[in-house]
């Protein structure tokens, strides 16, 4: 008995796998034949990473244009302006005499900051009093604000330190003692994982993961929608495998998965190296982490596509979701400060964990052990969306047969 069931089982397995492979090849055929699908799966995944990496290539603002209003007209004021200009962040493009002129340039958005040195600046310093310098920051972009604060803090603190030492000298504290008094302890800043404090290194890893998820999502929903337009009732209108939904599901998954192994390798491993984005992670860990990510995204998209009736539907309704997902990942607004319900809402989407995991492994060099939470979460998502998809396909295909 045992002997006869074994070959039977083997043949059945062979038969089933032939079905799976048939579906897989059929999906490939449809994707390659349909220019719209090919554009999403192959075009967008190829172009978007290059496009975004090129646009954000410069990473930070250097020599941001500012104006200095020097009412003091003194050596000390010129010294301060020179210091500001010497910082890597700022460039004094205009030396003006009054605030009105500066306002005009500021409203024309030609300068992104104003440093105002009042008339009594030099006098106050010479009289051993505390002088005040006013700075005006362009708040239209966080980058302008950050650059202005970095630059002026550096420039003005440096100037202040010199004056401090002069004054301590006057008070009878000199030499090394004065230096130490001014700075009883030093503090050194170490930027970890994004040494250049760059914008591309910050944003791009997130965009890359989102590109993978969103192209898969739009591709799968468009593919299903297109098939549906031909015959509304069924999820697999051609009834390629009658009511055999397991081969249908596995065939599709195998097609998307095999295609995206190559795409992921390009986006996650090659692009960061070409564009000098952070890539200190273990490549094997990235592969192991992104296996459940891909599966979760595929099953998630297949599940949503149950509700998609037309080719365009998802593309018209859902592009804005990309932006929401970017914020749910906790990259911009810190995850620790998100309201709890949005944090829970984010857990619906594979990208939330995918992005966090990729940042931690690829940008911060974490091991798989340290992203255990995200890794397990993705496997749970895979399981949940897999079961839901099987269930939905079963219902859909059964009703279609009747």
């Amino acid at each position: 008995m045992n002997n006869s069931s074994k070959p039977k089982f083997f043949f059945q397995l062979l038969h089933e796998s032939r079905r799976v492979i048939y579906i897989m090849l059929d999906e490939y055929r449809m994707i390659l034949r349909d220019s719209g699908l090919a554009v999403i799966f192959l075009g967008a995944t190829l172009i978007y990473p290059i496009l975004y990496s090129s646009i954000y290539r410069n990473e930070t603002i250097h020599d941001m244009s500012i104006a200095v209003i020097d009412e003091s007209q003194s050596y000390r004021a010129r010294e301060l302006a020179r210091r500001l200009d010497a910082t890597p962040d700022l460039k004094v493009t205009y030396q003006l005499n009054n605030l009105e002129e500066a306002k005009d340039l500021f409203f024309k958005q030609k300068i992104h900051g104003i440093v105002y040195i009042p008339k009594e600046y030099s006098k106050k310093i010479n009289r051993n009093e505390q002088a005040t310098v006013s700075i005006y920051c362009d708040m239209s972009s966080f980058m302008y604000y950050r650059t202005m604060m970095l630059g002026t803090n550096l420039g003005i603190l440096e100037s202040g330190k010199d004056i401090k030492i002069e004054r301590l000298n006057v008070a009878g504290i000199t030499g090394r003692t004065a230096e130490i008094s001014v700075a009883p302890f030093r503090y050194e800043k170490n930027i970890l994982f994004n040494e250049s404090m760059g914008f591309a290194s910050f944003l791009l890893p997130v965009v890359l993961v989102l590109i993978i998820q969103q192209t898969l999502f739009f591709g799968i929903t468009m593919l299903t929608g297109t098939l549906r337009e031909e015959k509304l009732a069924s999820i697999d209108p051609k009834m390629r495998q009658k009511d055999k939904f397991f081969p249908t599901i596995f065939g599709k998954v195998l097609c998307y998965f095999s295609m995206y192994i190559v795409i992921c390798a390009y986006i996650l491993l090659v692009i960061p190296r070409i564009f000098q984005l952070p890539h200190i992670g273990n490549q094997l860990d990235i592969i192991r982490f992104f296996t459940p990510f891909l599966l979760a995204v595929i099953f998630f998209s297949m599940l949503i596509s149950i509700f998609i009736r037309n080719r365009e539907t998802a593309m018209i309704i859902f592009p804005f979701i990309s932006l929401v997902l970017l914020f749910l990942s906790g990259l911009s607004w810190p995850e620790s400060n998100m309201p709890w319900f949005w944090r829970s809402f984010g857990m619906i989407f594979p990208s939330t964990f995918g992005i966090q995991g990729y940042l931690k492994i690829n940008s911060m060099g974490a091991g798989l052990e340290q992203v255990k939470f995200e890794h397990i979460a993705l496997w749970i998502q895979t399981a949940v969306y897999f079961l839901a998809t099987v269930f939905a396909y079963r219902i859909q295909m059964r009703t279609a047969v009747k």
Partner: protein
Amino acid sequence: MSKSIIQQIRDVAHREWKRMLSHPVYLLSSIIAMLFCYVFFLTLMSEGLPKQLPIGIVDSDNSSLSRALERNINASPQVEIIAKYASYTEARKDMQKGHIYAIVDIAPGFQADLLANRQPSIAYYVNDVYLVAGSLSYKDLTYISELMSGFILQQSLQAKGITSEENLMSILQPISIDTHQIGNPYTNYSVYLSNILLPGVLQLLIIMFTIYAIGVEMKQNTTREWLSTSNESILSALTGKIIPHTVLFTILGLMGLFLQYKVMKFPMNGNIVLMSLAMFLFVIAHQSIGIFIIGLFQRLRDSISLGVFYGLLSFTFSGLTFPIEAMPRGAQIFAWLFPIRYYFKIYVNEALNGANIRYSLIYFAVMLLFLLLPFLVYRRLRSTIVAHDRKEIKYNRFNEQFQ
């Protein structure tokens, strides 16, 4: 017999309105998407500036001074020490897990070195993978350190007999900085982002909706009915079609302005009427772009792909997150092609800077220029629609004969 052009437009608009209501999927999902984003972005960052950012400390000195530093850090509203670590490696591992944004590392002998005038140092490690959290926690740590060293200097000066408040301050901080954050005095992060992200979502919906509304007539073979409503006039057919959308999206856009400036009390240093006008121009400029895209590509499927591409690039080229002038020169040119860029400039002038209207006039004018786009593809679009219409008529006749 022949209807006036106003009549034609009214009839088409009426037809479009009925079409929208009879298949409300897209209408409802646009409204829901926009409302969702209003709620999402305005509540996600309702705190304004992230507070109590989690950081860690490695206090190998464990002296009264290092504990004082720790207390000072905790007293600041911006950061919060959530964990103490025995070693830097341990702390770094936790940072890699994303639990903390910064590490304060105090080496052993800190207090002893300080008292012996050996100028010890403290190391800060900031995780700038999270640019905002990293920048903010670093800014705060610098500030606390300056305060601390000022405090220590003050004590040593007092010990030397310099006690008057004036003298002390002039030595402690010879130059004080008086910072003005124009238009956003509390560095409210939500003000900075929502003001552009929300119109950004709106423009995505407008472009897709416009392309779909025109393309679907051809896809579903209803051009005959469409054109007969407009008395065969393409101009009326197009105008009448997009007017109901103009009303819908202008209402949604103005609602956003109301939520931001009235409900959330975002700064508005200029004229809200001008902002509303800018919003209206923003809506019709994007409708024009939608018409331009479908006119250019003719087929619904290609137009939609391009619409998504353009709409998503709008966020980049608004110049909100990363300034245009810091981009490579080749990319900078493209910023001209996005109305959101001009809307951004108007918003900065009006809401933040409170600048005179004459600074924004040029941006209003450029937004108006986008209205010319449909005329560039007008003939092409007309021939597409007419050609499709002929096919449709032929097909109908064939069907009639067949029956």
